[in-house]
């Protein structure tokens, strides 16, 4: 049985997003979560499973990219650490970029960003 007939991990990740599912990988040997998607378990090799991400996370690092209004104005950029462990680059939506704080609990959503489906995050509960 060959996996080669199936789509590769990045394509599968994107196909999951198109179905409205935020999936990450898991190393069955260690139980460790893996993102971004890989063809082999990072650092050790071996196959990876797909699991649904909890969608919970915490802002790990944050910046505001300053832009002139005619360029679209200031926009936030951050790293979110998923509850499962991996970090991802993303944007917190629904909160002004200056108000995004490190340590803020956030929850994932799937939306189109700059023409492609992506995982963004919203402040959880009261947020900031």
């Amino acid at each position, binding site marked *: 049985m060959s996996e080669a007939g199936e789509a590769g991990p990045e394509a599968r990740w994107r196909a999951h997003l198109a179905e409205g599912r935020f999936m990450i990988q898991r190393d069955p040997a260690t139980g460790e979560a893996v993102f971004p998607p890989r063809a082999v378990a990072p650092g050790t090799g071996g196959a990876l499973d797909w699991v649904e991400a909890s969608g919970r996370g915490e802002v*790990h*690092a944050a910046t*505001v990219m300053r832009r002139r209004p005619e360029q679209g104005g200031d926009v936030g950029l951050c790293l979110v650490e998923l509850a499962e462990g991996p970090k991802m680059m993303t944007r917190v939506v629904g909160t002004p970029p200056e108000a995004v704080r490190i*340590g803020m609990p956030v929850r994932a959503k799937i939306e189109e960003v700059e023409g492609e489906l992506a995982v963004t995050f919203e402040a959880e509960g009261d947020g900031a």
Partner: protein
Amino acid sequence: MSLKGKAAVVGVGEWGCGEAPGWSPLEILAKSAEAALDDAGLTLADVDGLFTASSYHFMPSSSVAEHLGIHPRYSDGSNIGGSSFVAHVVNAAMALEAGLCDVALICYGSNQRTAGGRLVSMSEAQPFERPFRPRHPIAAYALAASRHMHEYGTTKEQLAEVAVAARGWANLNPAAFARGPLSVEDVTGARPICDPLGKLDCCLVTDGGAAVVMTRADRAKDLAKTPAYLLGGGIELSHRSIAQMEDLTVSGAKASGERAYAMAGMGPKDMDVLALYDAFTINTILFLEDLGFCPKGEGGRFVEGGRIAPGGELAVNTNGGGLSCVHPGMYGLYLVVEAVRQLRGERGEGQVAGAETALVHGNGGTLSSQVTVVLGAEGTL
């Protein structure tokens, strides 16, 4: 087998630093190479090993060899970002020691400033970052700085101290591009680019080329200038995207530094002068910590009060660094050039008296690759 003491830098050169309007990257590189070979008392005809990296050329070794009119029997065009050239020093020592070449030329050129002020880059967008349009490289360093501030209470004023110290050294270097008074308030009050980093937390955008010539140690003694011997070298690659950096406050410099110190049989206390890749103010703080000059998290407090400025207790980036001297897209080779000049005692007003050892630390990508080299004068062998 260790590479310690097996090879030396015998020639250094720069050309077109600041602005070189109307000159292409290859032309700037060629003039720099000629300057370095002149410095060594060698010519292009002697070069049989070529080491280069580029944002402009898909096959940089081939493009450079053709332009210089040489047929190298060994080449290394690997690109790990701005640290590439520091890695080339290690790789050149290895190739020299193995007899794969006898005269190694490491070279770089860029017209980043006059060709439009933007870094020309073949770099592909990272697939899991792409929709968020990160303004790299600064956005990545801003994220790292935000985390350092969060974990250790590092302040914008402390970041600014790094830029002020670099300017202090630049003011002692007539060749530096940015000179003149600079205060902490000037830096913290500058236009914000990616919080917490403002315009003056960022390196310059200049033109310029640099080149370094290396030979085996036995030959080095017979050439024109005092050799600077390679005492230790270490490399660490950790990630490509900043999101995949294991700990945003600990760079690969910790591992690369330990390897370089181990080879040299030395430690931070033995270093007389430091050349750290300061693309952004946070870099210097991270590298001072990771290379063992202060505990993790103390870098901000360490640089306060002019400790790394002229007259301070630790001489760091004595040419003015990427922040105030020169930064033509990739800065790594200038670190080596400055360290060698210090070891030769050629640095005029910026000379660190009696400098016998120099720590060179190159950074590439978004804190992605780290390369540490220890150079020493003859007495350190």
